[in-house]
């Protein structure tokens, strides 16, 4: 055990754990005041359910010794069986690894909730969470994150295909984005969609949420080096570079198109860049990260317009930002993976622009496509089944009244008489 590596992973686990409340604040500010609590609760309930599921069996499905063909892990670690404080994973205690990986699962699920703001029955969401985690997240995490060890076999994407995904562009971003699309399609549009602006009720919350997410993302990406090492330093600098460049990219699009850059655009841009650098932060150079970020920021700024054309109500743009951004980042590896980074990683090929040819790009395409299709299909089925069983949506009238009152018997704010000082 290395105490320095352990210290960093303990800190990283805390950082990524904070991403769920950060996301709750980020998403919560984006919806109308009448549904902010439900929006935040969808993230919080994920923080409650995911750990239980993960410790009971999902961790084993993801990181247990491969059961068959690199598709899913076995049940050897059900109930964290066979793991004690002295068990190690690399240079850190396995318990830390278990928690670090759990926090990824929490964030991924919480991300999906943005697509169904204001209208999904809370009990339906609470049912969706564990099922999705079992059917989609755990297997995909196995494919991508479970590497073969001396006495353990991992997943097919990591070991057989050899696609590069350092911190979860496929597992986290593409899978959440594709699932968000499927769920939004099954749940349907919000009452008044396209007619009412439904603008964010609290943009400062959105900005603070974005800040907390960026902060947590450093644990997410640099923590994925599983140690306080050179790879972590690369992931760190790339994470900062991409977030920054993406904010500029997004704002540039807005300034050109609308004349001014919005705060909402700045917040969204940062996230788009962080999404895109998630898979690539271990395989591109800082200069490459600036490119990844700028491209992601600009592309996603346009991508969020798609829903209006195609007519699905992905309320908080999970598709436009996470699916599209995840694809951008995953594929750009095929072009921008640098020799130095690849050497450091110890596997994969340099990207096209670094003389590595199209080989790596091909693998990236396969990984992205398979995860996209798998997540979308499974989620579509899961959602449809839940809809049949208990219904996914609240009544139209309740939706107009506000889901907080209906599903949580609360309203978010009570500022009665508190602003009088203002006029004085």
């Amino acid at each position: 055990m290395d105490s320095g590596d352990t210290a960093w992973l303990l800190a990283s686990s805390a950082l990524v754990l904070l991403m769920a409340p950060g996301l709750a604040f980020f998403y919560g500010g984006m919806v109308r005041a009448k549904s902010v609590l439900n929006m935040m609760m969808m993230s919080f309930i994920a923080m409650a359910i995911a750990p239980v599921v993960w410790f009971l069996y999902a961790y084993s499905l993801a990181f247990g010794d491969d059961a068959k063909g690199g598709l899913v892990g076995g049940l050897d670690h059900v109930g964290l069986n066979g793991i004690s404080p002295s068990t190690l994973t690399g240079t850190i205690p396995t318990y830390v690894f278990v928690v670090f990986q759990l926090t990824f699962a929490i964030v991924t699920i919480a991300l999906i909730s943005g697509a169904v703001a204001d209208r999904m029955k809370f009990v339906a969401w609470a049912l969706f969470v564990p099922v999705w985690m079992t059917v989609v997240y755990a297997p995909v995490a196995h494919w991508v994150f479970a590497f073969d060890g001396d006495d353990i076999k991992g997943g097919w994407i990591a070991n057989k295909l050899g696609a590069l995904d350092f911190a979860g562009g496929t597992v986290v971003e593409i899978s959440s984005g594709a699932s968000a699309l499927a769920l939004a399609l099954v749940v349907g549009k919000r009452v008044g969609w396209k007619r009412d602006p439904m603008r964010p009720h609290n943009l400062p919350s959105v900005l603070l949420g974005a800040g907390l997410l960026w902060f947590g993302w450093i644990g997410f990406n640099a923590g994925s080096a599983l140690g306080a090492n050179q790879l972590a330093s690369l992931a760190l600098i790339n994470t900062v570079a991409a977030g920054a460049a993406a904010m500029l990219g997004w704002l540039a699009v807005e300034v050109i198109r609308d004349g001014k850059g919005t705060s909402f655009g700045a917040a969204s841009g940062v996230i788009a860049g962080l999404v895109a650098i998630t898979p690539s932060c271990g395989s591109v150079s800082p200069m490459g990260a600036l490119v990844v970020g700028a491209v992601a920021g600009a592309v996603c700024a346009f991508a969020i317009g798609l829903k209006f054309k195609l007519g699905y109500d992905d309320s908080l743009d999970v598709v436009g930002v996470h699916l599209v951004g995840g694809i951008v980042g995953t594929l750009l590896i095929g072009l921008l993976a640098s020799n130095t980074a690849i050497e450091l990683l110890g596997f994969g090929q340099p990207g096209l622009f670094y003389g590595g040819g199209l080989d790596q790009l091909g693998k990236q395409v396969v990984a992205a496509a398979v995860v996209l299709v798998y997540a979308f299909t499974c989620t579509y089925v899961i959602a449809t089944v839940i809809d049949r069983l208990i219904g996914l949506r609240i009544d139209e009238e309740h939706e107009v009244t506000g889901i907080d009152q209906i599903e949580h018997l609360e309203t978010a704010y009570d500022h009665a008489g508190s602003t009088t000082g203002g006029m004085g």
Partner: protein
Amino acid sequence: MKLVTAVVKPHKWEEVREALAATGIAGMTVTEASGYGQQKGHTEVYRGAEYDVSLVPKIRLEVVVDDADVDKVVSTITGAAKTGKIGDGKVWVIPVESVVRVRTGETDEAAL
């Protein structure tokens, strides 16, 4: 002139505004209000204790109009605000003795 005061459901107010604009009503003053009546409020829970929020959100609008326009305005508002469900609101008319436009000092009809 008359002052027409209307209390309507928040999600209907946009339609009311457009309907009035269509009939050439130049202006109005709007306030957020809370209504109490046959339409019941909702129940919230706090620390396991239920309590009623007896008020429901409403939009209250005031339009000062020529005597001639009163009926048109009232029927326009009622037409646009109507959902047929309890809580659609009320419209009442009050006599106005004089009106002044602050900017110009114009009075009465000219001030509208």
